[in-house]
């Protein structure tokens, strides 16, 4: 397929057919009325040639709808602006080299999953020597000193560490995002560091499968990583940012 550059539209079976699939439930029992309701919702979302191809009774006054339709929406390929930029990745050796000879110091990285969130696998994937997706984790880098606080760490405790140790980078993981639990935690930590006056002394980075980078930056983080992040991506960013700071 040769990619269209200017106007990009969904593709179902041929270029620019604009085909999309949509599904949602309604708090209505299944009926001719509920079917119409489903169709008009699809209509209000701007779909044309709407086909309600499945309408299912979910029990207790709920129903579920699967629809296909087409959208006229087309977006300009050139005009796409990237939020999470694909940074050029450095390699293991380059990173250690830069740290040792340019930054001239061993970098202390502290990681924690804060709040009541008990998910450690994501953070461990970045920190543990074992690493993730075939890449070794930060512990394997001679030039990183890694302190992994694990899960369910109260923000206060993280603050403690920054007082006791020469922390250069904080890596905060948040996996549970129900009811925005993660935002409360992240905001709180960022504010505490501000209050403490140590915010500028360190890199504040968060990550997690459901983190919206824009929002993370807004609440005061330097960077945010989403699903599928690799240790190298994190290490690369750390080095660049630290070097930038020294300039």
């Amino acid at each position, binding site marked *: 397929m040769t990619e269209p550059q200017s106007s990009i539209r969904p593709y*179902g*079976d*041929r270029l620019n057919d604009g085909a999309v*699939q949509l599904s949602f439930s309604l708090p209505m029992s299944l009926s001719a009325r509920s079917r119409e309701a489903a169709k008009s919702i699809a209509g209000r979302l701007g779909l044309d040639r709407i*086909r309600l*191809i*499945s309408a*299912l009774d979910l029990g207790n006054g709920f129903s579920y709808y*699967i629809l*296909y339709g087409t959208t006229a929406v087309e977006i300009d390929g050139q005009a796409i602006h990237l939020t999470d930029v694909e940074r050029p990745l450095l390699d293991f050796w380059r990173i250690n080299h830069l740290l040792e000879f340019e930054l001239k110091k061993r970098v202390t990285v502290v990681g924690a999953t804060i709040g009541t969130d008990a998910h450690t696998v994501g953070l461990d994937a970045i920190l543990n020597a074992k690493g993730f997706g075939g890449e070794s984790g930060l512990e394997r880098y001679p030039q990183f000193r890694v302190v992994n606080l694990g899960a369910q760490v109260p923000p206060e405790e993280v603050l403690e560490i920054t007082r006791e140790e020469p922390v250069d980078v904080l890596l905060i993981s948040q996996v549970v995002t129900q009811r925005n639990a993660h935002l409360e935690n992240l905001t709180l930590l960022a504010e505490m560091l501000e209050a403490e006056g140590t915010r500028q002394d360190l890199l504040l980075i968060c990550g997690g499968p459901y983190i919206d980078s824009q929002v993370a930056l807004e609440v005061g983080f330097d960077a945010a990583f989403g699903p599928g992040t690799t240790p190298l991506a994190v290490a690369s960013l750390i080095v660049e940012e630290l070097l930038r700071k020294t300039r």
Partner: protein
Amino acid sequence: MRLPISTEKVRHCRQLAASIAQEVEAEISPLSTVSVERSLLRLVGIEGANQENVPLVNCFIDHIARQRALEDGALYWLGNAILATGESPQSIGERVGAGSLDLVRLPRQPRPAIEKLCRGIVQDTLATLLGKRQQRRKMEENLPRTPPPWLYVIVATGNIYDDIEQAKAAAEKGADAVAVIRSTAQSLLDYVPEGITTEGFGGTFATGANYRLMRGALDEASRQSNRYVRQVNYCSGLCMAEIAALGVLEGLDILVNDALYGILFRDLNMIRTMVDQHFSRYLLGLFDTIIVTGEDNLIKTIDAFEEYPIVLVSQFINEQLAKNAGMREERIGLGHAAELDPALEDSFLWELVQAQLVRQLFPRSPVKFMPPTRYKSGNIFFAHVLDTLFNLVSVWTEQAIVLLGMPTEAIHTPYVQDRYLSLESALHVRRAAGALGRELRFQPNGQGAARARQLLAKTEESLTRIAEEGLWNSLSSGAFSAIRRTRHGGRGYDGVFRKGQFYLNPFLDREVVRRARRGEEA
């Protein structure tokens, strides 16, 4: 995983099928059809269409038919014309198409001379085509094999260029065979459209030009994904023989080929399509091409549990018809399908037993297993559940070729993502369950084994009945999916004729074939 069934009964079924096929043979061997003759002209190199865009091969046949000269066959008149004019088949074809040459009015040449000439032309044709075919087999053998079953997907955009883009994507994501669905009811056309086509209903027209484009794309894809990707198309229909010829000329690997489909679901005349089928299978056999049959269609409209034996009946008959046409079992891909009602208790067990039974009855056949379709609804998630279980049965019972079901079966011909999701499921199941066939056994005295024995018994019964009635009468009495077709009814009977005294077709000549194989001088 073997089911305990009586080899005695199986042998008997084969005998019955053989006698049924015999009778058909006897009846059709003195006959030929317009599409068989057109296929001969295509093979010896006549291509293209005239101003009115009528294919030259049609002009040629209509021309001699109009003058009551059809009975001597295409090659007789072509040979005569070549000797009389010294021109090439193509230029003769073009002049006939333009109406500037009357074949029948040309001075008649002696039959032996014509025969000698034609045998030579045919031998050379065969030699070149067999050479090409060998290269293709080499290409296939030199590429790494994928574990069975072959994953077979369809594209059906109606536009050959879109078909190609989607076929390439499918190949890249694991498809082993790609079929271009034909434009709805092309099987009813008594000619093969010409050239590249970008408009079609529910599919893309089967044309030589479209075949060539897709072949190129798939060969490229094969190299890129380091895996041989097979090209499939449909030849059942009024142009069965002709499309088989195109398949050979353009290097297709698999052709869907079944006269019964045409008779029952397209109301084609049974004699016409049986004659076409015989020659098409002879041709495909000659070039060691795989055919797959359409038994799946038989249980799409009747009770698939009660009436399942009709699938086995048709397979036994198709096997014999194909063997009589000179095909070897390794190329006869008999079809079957998983169309049981999901509401049925133990449906998974029954599908497993049926699939295993087919595998066991036809151990050498590259059987083609078709996915659930009729009980799929617009619920794409539940459709995906059904297809996943189907994939498991396919892998477990070691089917050879599996047409992948689509989550959107009940909605539209596959979108690009539907095909991907199906491949994703099938690839996972192939990786996860490849050992089941070796690791598990049926309880010899379980319900499954009982079902298998019962199916075989019923199959034997109906084959016996059909052997008594004869195939023609059985087709009239509704033995197949309760559909009734009369011997002389249906489309295309007017295209059938009894071979005349001068008729000749050297393609059927063992000697010519032998010499072509040996690459001897014509």
